[in-house]
């Protein structure tokens, strides 16, 4: 009750302000005195924000579940870090090797390969790299698998000799005593798995200067044992690669002269003995594992595919390949993707055309029938949607095969001889028939909704002005139904281009699409890079056609209703 007068005051003061505004010649002011334009903008911005907030869940959903995974998948078509990540030393060393010659790389590269492979097999990454490179050169897969198993023994020559020299070198505890800081050693003493995460290994000051190779190798070993194996590093005996690194340090450049930390005596003794050690020839050792390591093709493949990003997958996807001499066509008996892309396009166009031919009259009838009958027929059109795709496709198999319903009927009618039955399946005919049926509703529905909006009076007007039935249809009705054809065609064509289940079942060998190969590479050969490249090309082709359509017909001319 007591509020009422106040409200009145407020509204009357607002009224005064408006009157004042009207008398004013300056910018229009809102009730609170800010310029109206600004106030309006603010209100609109608020409205826009609210609208954005409303669509935000959908936008985020689409971004997270659709756009991001597709982008991630497509990105795989150029990604190639696996080679340089798994073989960092080898790929660096290979940079100086002349891949166009016939000589295999020298001993330093093999030594780098030994180290890389050693770490890779400990982390079980060498076989993964083998499968990757096997896509480019047959046989690399087993080469890496085999070598990974045997590379562990290669450095044992040094390990044995060092251990024979002094039992000190045998245990991890002794190694840790001079590799790790005192603080770390103290914190690890008495550590048990139950205590939780073990303190991270810290390299002792000065050891990296004294034994650069060994320190680097030991650090990698420590990191792996602690983080991947989750074993107690304090008690873990070092890998063979650490012994071979120590040998390199002992016989090569080192800072042992000024080293006076723990184990200095043992190191000095080892340094004195090392020059007389039996050595390993890594190239010979690798050749012993598999003579393919002396095959220049293997090294060329590693070098050609060592960059972090590659266009190799895209080249494969267009029947080309990378080689040391640059880019070349694949041998003719391996060219497949060009044929499949072309076939996919041609057959998708054929399917779209047959959908128009069959769908147009149906949509016309639907649009011109009384609503009750039209709805009933519409249900028939939609019926296939409610049946599983596999069931529909399998049903076509029963219909189309040589001992199937259609052929049996034709034979019974005497139109076809029984030993000369029509081949309607496992070829292009089968794919076109089955896919036209499956995609037909996508043509009929937009056509129907566009035709419903065409006034029947226009046709009557045309006829009353003297047009024949055909002229009335062709000059008056058809042009108005084009937006429906456009929408239906785009839907059908884009769906057809990516189909693979139906072509796989009824297409035989001549009726399969590029998507069948994409599916094969994604799910069977695991060559996701190539699958992604094929997918990217397909996507680009669709966008290009869409663009062309927009230029020629105009995308404004597409109506879904």
């Amino acid at each position, binding site marked *: 009750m007591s509020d009422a007068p106040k409200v009145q005051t407020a509204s009357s003061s607002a009224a005064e302000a408006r009157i004042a505004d009207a008398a004013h010649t300056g910018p229009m002011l809102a009730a609170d005195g800010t310029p109206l334009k600004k106030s309006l903008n603010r209100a609109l911005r608020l409205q826009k924000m609210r609208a954005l907030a409303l669509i935000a869940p959908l936008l985020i959903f689409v971004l997270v579940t659709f756009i991001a995974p597709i982008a991630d998948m497509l990105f795989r078509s150029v990604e190639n870090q696996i080679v340089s990540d798994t073989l960092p030393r080898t790929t660096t060393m290979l940079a100086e090797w002349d891949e166009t010659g016939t000589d295999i790389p020298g001993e330093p590269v093999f030594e780098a390969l030994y180290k890389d492979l050693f770490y890779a097999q400990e982390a*079980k*990454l060498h*076989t*993964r790299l*083998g*499968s990757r490179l*096997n*896509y480019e050169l*047959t*046989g*690399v*897969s*087993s080469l890496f*698998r085999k070598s990974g198993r045997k590379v562990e023994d290669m450095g044992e020559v040094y390990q044995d000799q060092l251990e024979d020299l002094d039992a000190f070198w045998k245990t991890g505890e002794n190694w840790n005593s001079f590799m790790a800081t005192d603080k770390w050693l103290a914190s690890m003493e008495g550590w048990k798995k139950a205590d939780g995460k073990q303190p991270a290994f810290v390299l002792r000051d000065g050891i990296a200067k004294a034994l650069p190779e060994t320190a680097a190798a030991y650090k990698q070993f420590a990191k792996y044992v602690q983080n991947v194996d989750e074993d107690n590093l304090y008690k873990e005996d070092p890998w063979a690669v650490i012994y071979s690194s120590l040998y390199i340090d002992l016989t090569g450049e080192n800072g042992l002269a000024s080293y006076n930390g723990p184990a200095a005596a043992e190191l000095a003794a080892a340094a004195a003995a090392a020059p007389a050690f039996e050595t390993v020839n890594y190239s010979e050792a690798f050749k012993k594992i598999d003579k393919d390591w002396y095959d220049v093709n293997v090294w060329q493949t590693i070098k050609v595919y060592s960059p972090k990003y590659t266009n190799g997958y895209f080249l494969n996807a267009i029947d080309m390949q990378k080689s040391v001499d640059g880019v070349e066509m694949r041998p003719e*008996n*391996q*060219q*497949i993707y060009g*044929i*499949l892309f072309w076939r996919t396009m041609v057959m998708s166009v054929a399917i779209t055309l047959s959908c128009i031919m069959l769908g147009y009259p149906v949509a016309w009838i639907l649009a011109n029938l009384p609503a009750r009958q039209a709805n009933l027929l519409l249900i028939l059109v939609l019926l296939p949607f409610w049946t599983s795709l596999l069931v529909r496709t399998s049903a076509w*198999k029963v219909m189309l*095969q*040589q*001992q*199937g319903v259609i052929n049996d009927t034709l034979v019974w009618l005497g139109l076809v001889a029984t030993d000369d039955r029509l081949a309607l399946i*496992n070829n292009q005919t089968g794919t076109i028939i089955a896919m036209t049926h499956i995609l037909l509703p996508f043509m009929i529905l937009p056509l129907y909704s566009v035709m419903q909006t065409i006034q029947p009076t226009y046709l009557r007007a045309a006829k009353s002005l003297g047009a024949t039935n055909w002229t009335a249809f062709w000059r008056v009705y058809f042009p108005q139904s084009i937006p429906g054809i456009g929408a239906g065609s785009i839907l059908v064509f884009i769906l057809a281009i990516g189909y693979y289940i139906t072509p*796989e*079942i009824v297409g*035989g*060998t*001549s009726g*399969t699409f590029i998507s069948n*190969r994409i599916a094969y590479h*994604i*799910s*069977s*050969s*695991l*060559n*996701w890079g190539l699958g992604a490249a094929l997918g990217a090309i397909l996507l680009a082709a669709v966008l290009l056609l869409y663009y062309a359509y927009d230029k020629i017909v105009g995308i404004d001319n597409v109506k879904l209703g």
Partner: protein
Amino acid sequence: MNLTKTLMASTALTVAAGMSFAESHMANEMTIVSWGGAYSASQQNAYHTPYSEMTGVKIINDESSAEAVSKLRAMNEAGNVTWDVVDVVASDALRLCDEGLAMEIDPDEMLADAPDGTKASEDFGDLLVGDCFIPQIVYSTTVGYRTDLVGDTPPTDICAIFDTDAYPGKRSLEKRPIGNMEWALLCDGVAKDEIYDVLETAEGQQKALDKLATIKDDVIWWSAGADTPQLLADGEIIMGSTYNGRLFSLIVEQEQPVAMLWDAQVFDLDGWIIPTGLSDERKARAMDYIMFATDTQRLADQAKYISYGPARKSSAPLVGKHAELGIDMAPHMPTDPENAKNTFLYNYEFWADYRDDIDAKFQAWLVQ
């Protein structure tokens, strides 16, 4: 005296604690992935149901084995592996192992000994291919033919497939090079033990494709195991290759006029892998299940429900009668001596290397 008692008591306590530790540290729900259909049913009867009854574990069946390799890779990349035990063919197991997606196994430690004490590694023998694969069954890809459509002299050897004069009509072959290339070379006069040496060379591969080209127009290429049985039943083809278990159900259960040609059957293996990246509880459960499901009796039990041979040598004598039909299962096993006179064992190492290369050529040949 006192000391002994204390010792004994503490030992008993430790053992009890250890057992309860093991029990409480195993997940009580697991997802097992397999192929579906009759095969999953046979596993349900022989393994899952008894295991659930014994342990109270809830087993969830997933029928995704056909896409297991790609799905496992995707799960692994997403860091969320939801499968505990996966049934795959040996070549896929090899691939998963190479990719680091399957756990390495130590057969003697993780698998049960045979009843007579033979170590698992010896009981499974050569069938332990790769480092991650736990074999379960031996199946074969072999040829079935319509007895009423092949005339008076039914085929007896594999080369009938290539003999369109004696056996005119369509035949079906799998839409992949594996198996077909071997058969083509064999029927082109290459000695059996030289086939892979020949197939390593580009000329050898071309030779095989040329042989296949002689029947290219008469072949319907299948990609699903159910295709050939359907085509045979409908009389679309006169002969075709498929898995022996599919032919068994077509002949014995559906009583179709079909017979089997065991000649040059290609043995393949199917078995389990445990994915990497499982939590400790789930891994313990998966290993416990594997230990149970691959013991001698369990493998023999599976053969009651499906005509695939158990992978353990010690299971063979225990193979009995079909659970519903009551017929003796031994003569329907691909490993039965009568059937296994001339066989191939899928060469895993060879195909792991050559699969991509030969498949590219094979598919290009199909398309051109």
